[in-house]
């Protein structure tokens, strides 16, 4: 295939500014750990003008409805107890900056945690309530809220130190050719971004925009559900959302976006 050496035409002129206020970096120099890519691009760059525009104004972005739901939920008692997220975290804004550094090594647990795992730790261990479904609506909307307060901040996940082993595992998954079609993430999102695969304009498969509101299914979509869909499309047995494999893959893919802005909830087709 023809590796995409030239950025998309629109990449040069387009600029994502949300609400005339939040400036989003949608293209940046590739992080040093990436061997084959010089510049990284948000998936926003590859969408149609109409889809891009929806993300420029929170009143147009259908994903913001989920953010509003989660704002209400933030103050709602968890389980049978009295405690809500707000009992311990004054406001969603108190969690500003969190999205940008997750997945992150958790010292106490001795593992890399995604934002969903961290939220469930609070829900179960701190508030004593039942865990939320990893890719369920409640969780996804809460993750969208936590992302939204970090919009415009650079993604900056740590890949060294104790997280390195998990990162290496994620990298290996990224380059493994799964399924009967024998396709790796890299075949589509590294070797062929900016090419059309049938009707789809391939992006770099970045996750800085998650959760994404997809016009195709009319809801907020989680990172792991997207991974699952892409692995399934190789005619492979997928991994499950929340599995150690997808956690590792998420850390690795997030690190390929270090330098792009947090953008979620974004709008995609």
């Amino acid at each position, binding site marked *: *295939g*023809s590796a995409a050496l030239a950025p998309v035409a629109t990449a040069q002129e387009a600029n994502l500014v949300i609400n005339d206020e939040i400036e989003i970096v949608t293209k940046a120099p590739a992080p040093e750990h990436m061997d084959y890519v010089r510049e990284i691009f948000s998936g926003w760059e590859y969408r149609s003008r109409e889809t891009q525009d929806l993300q420029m104004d929170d009143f147009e972005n259908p994903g913001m409805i989920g953010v509003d739901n989660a704002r209400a939920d933030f103050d709602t008692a968890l389980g049978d107890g009295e405690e809500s997220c707000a009992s311990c975290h004054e406001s969603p804004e108190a969690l500003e900056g969190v999205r940008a550094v997750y997945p992150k090594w958790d010292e106490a647990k001795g593992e890399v945690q995604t934002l969903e795992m961290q939220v469930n730790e609070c829900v179960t261990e701190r508030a004593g309530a039942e865990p939320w479904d990893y890719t369920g609506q409640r969780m996804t909307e809460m993750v969208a809220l936590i992302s939204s307060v970090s919009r415009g901040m650079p993604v900056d996940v740590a890949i060294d130190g104790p997280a390195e082993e998990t990162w290496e595992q994620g990298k290996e998954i990224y380059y*493994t*050719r*799964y*399924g*009967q*079609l*024998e*396709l790796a993430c890299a*075949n589509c999102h590294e*070797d*062929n971004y900016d*090419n*059309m*695969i*049938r*009707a789809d304009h391939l992006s770099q498969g970045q996750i800085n925009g998650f959760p994404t509101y997809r016009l195709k299914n009319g809801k907020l979509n989680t990172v792991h559900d997207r991974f*699952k869909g892409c*692995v*399934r*499309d*190789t*005619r*492979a*047995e*997928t991994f499950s959302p929340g599995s150690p494999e997808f956690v590792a893959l998420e850390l690795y893919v997030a690190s390929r976006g270090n330098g792009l802005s947090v953008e979620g909830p974004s709008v995609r087709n």
Partner: protein
Amino acid sequence: MSRQFTLAVALALAGSVVQAEVVAPQEVAYGEYRAIETSLSGAPGDPEAGAEVMTTRGLGNCVACHAVGALDEVPFHGEVGPPLDGVADRWTEPDLRGIVANAKMTFPGSIMPAFYKTTGFIRPGDGFTGKAAEEPLEPLLTAQQIEDVVAYLMTLRDE
């Protein structure tokens, strides 16, 4: 083709019974230049059926990656692989059979899937369900579908 095994396939065709020799995916003999000399189904291919296979999502879906000028009534041709216009001027029929059956023989490390291969996959799935499947899998295309596609490709000439 000494290892070629024969399978008597009874085909009810226009009232008569035709014997065809199908070469199973595991038994295919790739030549020195990765070509496959003779028909995998034992029968000639039908170019019209081949065009159908090439443009159908659940089958070859070749246009997902390749543009084909002669098929431009079908929307959305991809650009992951080279355009196939004039491909019969560049390759012989045995070459094309080898490429369609397992392109990774001709182009090592190619992104192009192997359409006549049943084992040796990592986490093979049951179609597009995301569930596990046991090898050997059904090949992506049958021997006859490969022949049909090759017959269609042989019509793609510039001169």
